[in-house]
């Protein structure tokens, strides 16, 4: 199910990207008009579906020879933090399951390393249930960051009180609200592992949480960590569906479908405003990065955009 319709998706992504370049092309004033110190830069780094891939893929791997690896990611994150003042490091779930590190140690090392790298938050993916709710609860002491989920009701389980819907980060006067959204468990995850966890409508819960973060808690930037999956050919709810239905969310950091989105996909939300969807494949092959620039004076500015290809990317997983 993960990789359904990749061809359609590729085609679709292409169209979306060209579409977005077209829109940007309408704006003719270059962004150099900004005096640099007028802007506050928020750097969001993200991963998804790392699936216990601690070591790089071996050199004889047919698809990703020598790529990935947590130790490299740690250095890269450190380098970025040494240059950028306001960094958020986020994960969109499926931390667990995929290499013997999980079979042997149950996620202990994955969470320890994420803590060491300074992850700020993660959401919960379907495979994070693979050792049952106990498999999450018993490892939580290895994580110094919160698990965020707004649409799983854990109140009748041992997870009660172990997660929160959202967390607010304040960076240089910019308030950033981050919340999590999980995928439907029925038919995907064995019932005996998730027990009495109740899956609630992701669109509804995302809407409620986004309103709360925007209107009551006055967040300037709202990020959804989603494990719904990028898009599906059928009517199954996805990041794409959520983005179109949403308001107030600025960025969806997605997962589950292991989709390599080399550029963010821009969607108009229900108010006609742009929302961006990002996802960086799986296995820690890449680190995603999105930089947001905030004006502190509240004046509208027009900005020009450009797209550059610097180094050849890697193929999507087929």
């Amino acid at each position, binding site marked *: 199910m993960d990789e359904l319709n990749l061809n359609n998706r590729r085609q679709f992504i292409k169209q979306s990207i060209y579409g977005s370049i077209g829109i940007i092309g309408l704006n003719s004033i270059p962004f150099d008009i900004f005096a640099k110190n007028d802007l506050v830069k928020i750097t969001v780094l993200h991963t998804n579906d790392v699936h216990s891939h601690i070591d790089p893929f071996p050199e004889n791997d047919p698809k990703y020879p020598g790529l990935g690896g947590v130790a490299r990611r740690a250095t890269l994150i450190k380098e970025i933090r040494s240059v950028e003042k306001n960094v958020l490091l986020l994960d969109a779930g499926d931390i667990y399951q995929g290499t013997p590190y999980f079979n042997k140690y149950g996620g202990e090392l994955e969470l320890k390393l994420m803590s060491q790298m300074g992850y700020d938050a993660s959401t919960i993916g379907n495979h994070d249930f693979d050792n049952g709710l106990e498999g999450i609860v018993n490892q939580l002491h290895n994580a110094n960051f919160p698990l965020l989920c707004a649409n799983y009701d854990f109140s009748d389980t041992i997870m009660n009180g172990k997660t929160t819907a959202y967390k607010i980060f304040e960076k240089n006067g910019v308030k950033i609200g981050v919340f999590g959204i999980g995928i439907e468990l029925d038919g995907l995850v064995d019932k005996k592992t998730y027990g009495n966890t109740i899956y609630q409508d992701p669109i509804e819960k995302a809407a409620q949480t986004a309103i709360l973060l925007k209107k009551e808690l006055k967040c300037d930037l709202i990020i959804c960590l989603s494990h719904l999956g990028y898009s599906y050919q059928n009517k199954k709810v996805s990041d794409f569906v959520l983005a179109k239905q949403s308001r107030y969310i600025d960025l969806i950091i997605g997962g589950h479908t292991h989709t390599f989105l080399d550029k963010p996909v821009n969607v108009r939300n229900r108010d006609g405003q742009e929302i961006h969807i990002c996802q960086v494949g799986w296995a820690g092959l*890449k680190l995603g990065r999105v930089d947001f620039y905030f004006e502190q004076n509240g004046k509208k500015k027009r900005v020009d955009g450009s797209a550059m290809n610097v180094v050849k990317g890697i193929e999507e997983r087929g």
Partner: protein
Amino acid sequence: MILIRGIFLHFILVLFFACSPKSKLSKIEQSNIELNSGNKEDSNVLKVIAPYKNKMKNEMEEVLIISESSAVKGDPEGTLGNIVSDIVLKQGNIKCAEAYIEKVDICLLNNGGLRTPLPKGAITTGKIFELMPFENQLVILTLSGKKTLSMFNYIAFQGGMPLAGATMTIKKGKATNILINNVAIDTSLTYRVITSDYLSNGGDKMNFFSSPQKTETLNNKIRDAIINYLRAENKKGNTLKPVLDGRIKFE
């Protein structure tokens, strides 16, 4: 940023906001960074990993067999789906013979459950853990001919799945020309299908697996079945030969 190797994308986007909150979002830049040998490894992280890695090193580095080529997923059939479903069918039948139970006709797995391709050359235990990380068990379901036909139509609807013991053609999203053990499907018969307990318990919503005529468990994890089969084949001096053989075709 320039210091970091492997940045392959830099993209600047525009945003307008109608409302005026305290801090106004005015611009977004995006760049994904590939992690390759150009990225230095953090020595503190390597130090944390080392004891975990060393403790399982001997077990995970055992070479189970040599593969003559790599195996990857594909539609409607892939070398990976073919080789894994063949192995599970064969190992399942070894287990059936040991237990004096009737042999199985068909193996059906799901592409989502095959988590990594197999390389050419040495296949280690660690690689099989990556291929099949789940603790799923093998089950044998005895299905009516009608449910078996539904199964083939589901495979057709999916555009192909890892399948062994049968061949089929997908015509306009439906299964045709279905042969089981080289004989045309007969819906008045029952068929024995080996699969994972994940799929038989409702995973991927394969409804034809619900309420089968009989369910037998082999008390054997799929991963262990694969490992045992490969090790035994290697002892016999055999290699692994992943191939496409046209078992599932589009018309």
